[in-house]
Each structure stands twice: as C-alpha cells, then as structure tokens.
C-alpha cells in the first residue's frame, strides 16, 4: 500500500469510529433519558404547570425553560407556529428550569402575573425585551419592571404577589423535577414524554410530527 493511502485510510477509520461512537452514545442517552421520563412520568407535568392550547390536544410538548435563555426565546415563535399549523392538536406545558443567575426571580414574576390572568402576555414581554435585561455580560433584571406595564399588569400587586412563598416553592419543585428528569440545559423538550435528545428545530419538529401521526 502506498503511504498516502495509509494516511487516508487511517483518517477514514478514525472518523468512522468517531461517528459510530456518537450514534452509540446518543442512542444510549435517548434510551436512558426516555426511561427516566417513563419511570418519573409524574415529574413531567404538574397540576400547577402553565398550559397553552387545547386541553384535549393529544400531542403535549413539555418545555423546561428559563425566561432569560436566548434559545428559549428563539424557540418560542417556532412552537407557536407549529401549534397554529395543527390547531387543537398540540398543547404546550411550561416548566421552570431557571439556570441563569437571577432567573428564578423572573419565574416568580411570571407566576405573579398569572394571578392577574396575564401569564402569557408577561412572558411575551419578557421574551421581546430579553436582550435589554438578560445580557450575558451585564444582566440587568431590574429593567424588566419598565416593560411589564405593557402586558397590562398591575406592577405594585405583582411586586407583592411574587414574594409569596407558595411561588418560591412552586419554582423549587419545578427545578427538582428538572433534576429528576436530568434536564441540564434550556430549553429541555419532551414530546408526549419522549425527550428531545439531539437538539434543533428540525429535530423537535420531527418528534412532534411523529407524535401527530401516531395520535391522529
């Protein structure tokens, strides 16, 4: 064999080993995360979890999110589009995984907004203004207060409500569920209990479409 061929062949062998190894690992992760979600099905959706969409929808997307997470913000319109494309068939359940520093306060704001019936409006405002209060280098969470009135919220009531220990406990229990289900990054998606292992728009869409086909 020529020397050049030895190099090329070795390169092919190494890269193939890498690719096969990746598939093996991802497969095992899918298996273990899936069984984790199956054995802890109760940790996936709690009674207190905010829900968007038809209650009878058979495809349920559970999203572990953080209001300060850029990728969560980027996925938000994508999910809404999917829900609009299949009206009544997809339901979104939000869970809190406040991984950013100070993000638990933002979750508390959301929960307090829920008491005014403005949960989704408040979340929309948070996502819209995220670059201004959740900059990675200089996060300025206090800035959110100047934007919240746009959601039609009574800010004074909001400030009082968010101190309620019930809310802190709710966020804490969501984080415990995230740990149970091994969600270490946001957004963490489960579609009808199946974890999204390889992350991406297309991958999420495929998973949702698979479940749509299976249930309708």
């Amino acid at each position, binding site marked *: 064999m020529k020397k*050049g061929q030895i*190099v090329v062949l*070795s*390169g092919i062998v190494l890269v193939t080993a*890498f690719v096969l*190894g990746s598939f093996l690992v*991802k497969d095992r992760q899918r298996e273990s995360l899936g069984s984790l979600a199956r054995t802890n099905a109760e940790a996936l959706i709690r009674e207190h979890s905010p829900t968007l969409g038809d209650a009878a929808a058979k495809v349920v997307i559970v999203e572990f999110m953080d209001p300060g997470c850029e990728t969560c913000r980027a996925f938000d319109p994508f999910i809404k589009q999917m829900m609009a494309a299949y009206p009544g068939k997809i339901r979104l359940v939000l869970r809190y995984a406040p991984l950013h520093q100070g993000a638990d306060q933002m979750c508390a704001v959301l929960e307090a907004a829920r008491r005014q019936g403005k949960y989704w409006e408040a979340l929309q405002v948070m996502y819209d203004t995220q670059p201004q209060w959740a900059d990675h280098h200089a996060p300025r969470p206090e800035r959110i207060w100047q934007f919240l009135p746009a959601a039609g919220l009574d800010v004074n009531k909001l400030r009082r409500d968010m101190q309620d220990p019930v809310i802190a406990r709710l966020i804490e229990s969501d984080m415990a569920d995230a740990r149970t289900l091994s969600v270490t990054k946001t957004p963490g998606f489960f579609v009808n209990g199946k974890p999204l292992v390889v992350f991406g728009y297309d991958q999420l869409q495929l998973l949702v479409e698979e479940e749509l086909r299976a249930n309708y």
Partner: protein
Amino acid sequence: MSSNRTDRAANVDWAILFACWLIASVATLGSLFFSDVLGFAPCVLCWYQRIFIYPLVLIFGAGLFSFDAGVIKYSLPLAIAGWFVALYHTLLYWGIVPKSIQPCSEGVPCTEKYLELFGFLSIPLLSLLAFSAVVTLLIVLKRRITA
C-alpha cells in the same frame, strides 16, 4: 534525505511521523468526542491545549504525503508549547499547583473531574501523555535525520 540512507531507514522515519499524526488525530477526535458527544464542557486550559494539538493533525498530515522532514521544525514548537500547558493543567488537577493561581475563575473549573480511566487517567493526564509522546517522537525523528 541524504542519498546514503536506506529505504528501510526512510520507512522508519515515515512511520515515526505517522505515529505522531495518529496521536494528534486521536487526541483531536477524542477531545471533540468528550465535548460534543459526551457533553463535557472544556475549561480554559483545555482550549489552550486544543489550540496546540488541532493544527498538528494537518501539519503532520501534509508532511506524510511526500515525506518532508521540515515538518519537525514547524510542529515541534507547537507540541512543546502544548506540553507545557498540559503539564500545568495536570499539576493543577493533582493539586500540586495551588488552585488560587489558576486562570479559570469563570465557566468550568479546570479541576473538574469528568472521568478517570483505571482510576488515574484523567483528561489532563491523557493530554500530557499525548503531547509527551509527540514531542519525544519528533525529537527522535530529528536526531535520526540529522545523524
């Protein structure tokens, strides 16, 4: 290559360089496997070592097609620099260099234990072994060629 050197000696030279290339390639793919497949976030020192090992794959690769001994001159500085970072990282990991002077205050601490094969082979040690092997092989090759 001097004309009095035999084909056999030339083949050994090539094999030594090929071994260097293999080590660099396995180290490169291995580091990518750790970070991108297993999800181990690389610390700052890991990145410095990556800077020194990744180009070696291409430099050695280029030197292997139509064997060029000049490759030593360009690759040895990279390998030695990487070796020093790997040594520092390993000493830090073992606690010989005190943590207080480590440069990684943000992100992943450089002493994060991701895996220890056979109870002692940590990622920094794997890196140190790889750089040591490459430096040693290159010095051997240099001596053989200038002899």
